[in-house]
């Protein structure tokens, strides 16, 4: 149980949400995902189980504690927006603050700030019915943000929007999240949306958890046919990273090694390329067998290396690897964020990954 995460258990479902991450619950209609999210803030009372927030069980709370929780810690965004048609936008956004008892000037000022975040400045005095679907959901998000909650629950917020607007809203949510770092539980029936937004994804079916993992884990290692069906439509190039494709480099030479030593090591393997690193595993470059053979046998490798080399990082997506592989037949080195060599990828591996 993470320090400020919480654990949700519904019908034998347990999972943990980490602070500041987007946790997506994905499932088809009737899979229990909407019930699950309502159990978190007890809009639906779970009959059995525990919901822990920073170690405190929400199910043990009395009415007043629960109300305070809803007013200050958890806020929710709804599928059909759930806006109040009889209140102006500004009063919709300020609703959560109003029922906390905040005075009008303060809550309106806060509402203005939040509306600016979702780029709806200028619409304060309109009524929800006058706004498009996408704009209405921005109001829904603004209303949830206004109370500055620790946790935000999104119940299929973009399902009612048309595909173009949906994509726009997803990008906007990701941008907002970069600023806000809220802990978000996001419900969706759209697997691609789950892949795009989620740091972790829980796939539900018939009220039970089918698979839990990062988007990449789910796409590359679906646990059963049910999950595999979903992954079929996923553009794998956008999910699979170099990290899961790469293989360890067979011949790694130090920069101080001589050409002769390296040639001998290469000759013992079927490989044609040596990866050169410094003492601290910092990647220096690659040398092919042909380059080595045409060089003086006793010179050290670092004198031969051309400074610029193509490389990928562990987080590079497959779709970005393809143009790299197109340019040359040579393998691509994969580095971590400290520029250390982690492995390599060649055309064959990319083609295998695409073909899967």
């Amino acid at each position, binding site marked *: 149980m993470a320090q400020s995460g919480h654990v949700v258990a519904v019908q034998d479902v347990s999972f943990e949400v980490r602070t500041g991450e987007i946790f997506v619950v994905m499932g088809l209609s009737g899979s229990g995902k909407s019930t699950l999210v309502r159990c978190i*803030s007890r*809009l639906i009372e779970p009959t059995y189980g525990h919901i822990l927030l920073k170690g405190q069980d929400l199910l043990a709370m009395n009415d007043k504690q*629960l*109300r*305070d*929780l*809803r*007013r*200050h810690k*958890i*806020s*929710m965004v*709804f599928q*059909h*927006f*759930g*806006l*109040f*048609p*009889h209140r*102006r936008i500004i009063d919709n956004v300020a*609703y*959560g603050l109003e*029922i*906390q008892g905040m005075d*009008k000037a303060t809550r309106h000022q806060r509402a203005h700030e939040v509306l600016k975040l979702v780029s709806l400045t200028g619409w304060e*005095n309109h*009524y929800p*019915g*006058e706004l498009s679907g996408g704009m209405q959901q921005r109001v829904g998000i603004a*209303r949830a943000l206004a*109370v500055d909650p620790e946790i935000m*629950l999104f119940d299929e917020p973009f399902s009612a929007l048309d595909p173009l607007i949906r994509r726009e809203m997803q990008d906007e949510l990701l941008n907002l999240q970069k600023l806000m770092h809220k802990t978000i539980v996001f419900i969706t029936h759209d697997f691609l949306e789950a892949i795009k937004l989620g740091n972790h994804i829980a796939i539900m079916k018939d009220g039970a958890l089918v698979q839990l993992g990062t988007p990449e884990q789910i796409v590359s290692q679906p646990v059963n046919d049910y999950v595999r069906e979903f992954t079929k439509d996923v553009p794998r190039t956008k999910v699979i990273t170099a990290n899961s494709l790469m293989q360890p480099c067979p011949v790694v030479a130090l920069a101080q090694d001589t050409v002769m030593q390296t040639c001998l090591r290469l000759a013992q393997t079927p490989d044609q390329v040596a990866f050169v690193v410094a003492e601290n595993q910092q990647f220096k470059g690659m040398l092919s067998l042909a380059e080595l053979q045409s060089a003086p046998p006793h010179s050290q490798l670092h004198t031969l290396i051309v400074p610029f080399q193509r490389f990928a990082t562990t987080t590079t997506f497959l779709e970005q690897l393809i143009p790299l592989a197109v340019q040359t037949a040579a393998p691509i080195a994969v580095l971590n964020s400290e520029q250390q060599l982690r492995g390599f990828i060649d055309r064959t591996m990319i083609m295998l990954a695409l073909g899967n």
Partner: protein
Amino acid sequence: MWTIRKELRTPVVHPLAIYINAMPPTDIKRHIFWPLLGLGLLLIIAWGLAIGPFPAAGNLHLDVPIDALQGWVIANRLTHPLFLWFFDPLSNAIDFGLRSTEDFLLWLPWPVLMLAIFLLGQRGGGLRLALLATISLLFMGLLGLWTASLQTLALMSISVFICLIIGIPLGIFAARYPRLDTTLRPILDAMQTMPAFVYLIPVLLFFGIARVPSVVATVIYALPPAIRLTTLGIRHVPLAPIEAARSFGATRQQILWGIQLPLALPSIMAGVNQTIMMALGIVVIAAIIGAGGLGKEVLNALQRLKVGQGLEAGLAIVALAIILDRISYAFSRFDRRNIVQVGFRLLPRHLETFPPAQWLERGIDYLYRLGQWLTQSVTKSCLIFVKALHAPTADDLAPILQERGFWLISLIILTITLFISKYILQISQFPATWTISIRQPTDTAVVWMRDNLYQIGDWPIGTGPLSDFVTLYALNPLRDVLMTVPWPFLVMLTAWLAFLAAGKRLAVLSGLGIITLGLLGMWEQSMNTLSQVIVSVIFSLIIALPIGIMAAHNDTFEILIRLVLDFLQTIPIFVYLVPVIMLFNIGRVPGVIASIVYALPPAIRLTNLGLRQVDPGLIEAALAYGSTPAQTLWKVKFPLALPSIMLGINQTVMMVLATVITAGLVGGGGLGLEAINGLTRNQTGRGFEAGLAIVILAMIMDRLTQALAKS
């Protein structure tokens, strides 16, 4: 008029025939064959045992305790604390309210009132409504009924106000506590079906101060829709905003006041509209126990057989109904987004290319702009003034004034008009010299009809012979059959029909209901009334269905018939009772005719509506297969319109029953006569028994026809 909107609910319906067709053979045996055989046997056995109508010995004599209670009230009226400390102060308060409202309305100079109605209409529904309402008010003045109309308006206002302060909170509680709702339901049904004659005397006894009893009687009659539509409105608030409010930690009170009530407002306003229309529907009966105004005018005319005078007062009631109905309806559908109207404001849009129409509309447009400019400048100067006093208040006020600027400017204009007309021109009452009158021509026409239509030539044609024919060949035989049939047979027959329509529960309740008619000692009267109802319903349908079919196929005819129907539903039945009596004699026939007239509108409307709502795709399909218009009507449209038509039959039955009771006044006999005797001969207990019998009959028939329409 309130029924018009009630009709718009169209449930899905199957007639009995479809129900039987759909049953598997064993079920037909079980539900149709065996019961029929049983009923036949029952009939034979009952005849053998010489069981006829419900025995008089079975009368429970419920009237004895009721009369005893009434005796107690009369004896203690002046001394008991219940009256001294509860009913008397309450009556005084109501009397004070009524008096002040009336005095205020009569104190207002007539131009102010007209302007106020105009502005209300303008705000609620635009220029057309404003002009319609103003002309209606003017019409009431021209008929010489200005004072009477305002008295009625005062009565309406107080009654409706009381209905709302009782009805809305009750409605809210009923929405929250389903058990209260289920308890209230039958009580409200009874309030709506119990003839007012029955409770006039008790109301008089409990609230016997001046015109207070008429207010109370009106409240009893008009209260149900206020409660029902509040409950309905709150129940039908979409769940999404309520869940959202809960998710933000709103308390139940915050949800009720902040979300549910504002969103239920259109439904509550529809309740206000229906309450007003119900209250207006009882205005003549209320006059029996002392209400003044238009009701009294109608009643006076009825008593002196002055048809023209009665018609004038009746028309004034129609005019008042138009004003109150259209304005309250407009506000119940009030949508703040649609305030701005563009283009043709007064004339129909298809005149757009016609130059004089364009000039007129352009003129109106200038007036609108002037009004807008005036509103804005007044609002602005008002804000500047407030800002000088206290800046933050002005900031809070700005958005409110932006939305409500119309009311501010209206108030200012009305005040100015008030001062000018009251203190400078010194006008108050509507000028007595401005009159139009239709008394003379109406009376002449009625006399002509009596002389020429009662019997045409020497042949047995005319209204008189028709009346005799209906009595001899329809009403009498049916009444005699119903009165002599063994009572257990009738109980079982009703139960069986109810079972086929809705199942065991309704079967048991209907059977018990029929037995109760006997226990109340009202068997004979109920059978008499039932025979009148059946004859009226059959005649209504024979007339209504062809008219409805015609209206569905001809738009011009539909518009015409709609006007006539609106008129027929609003004009008090008492207005046309007199000419009907002149033409058809005293007896049961005038009651039948009056109830047919009153019951035609829903039957015609719903037939028309049902036929018009048939999916055009299906009609197209029928035509594509080469159907003739008649084939399309009978094979496609009619079956599909049946749900709506069945609902029309339900409404017809209910309205016929209500009217046949009123017809007790003109010799209708049966339960109606008993109810009215309760009033005129001071037999409250007996009247109450008759009232209960009517409620029972009404509920059985309502549930039965509704179940048939839904099953």
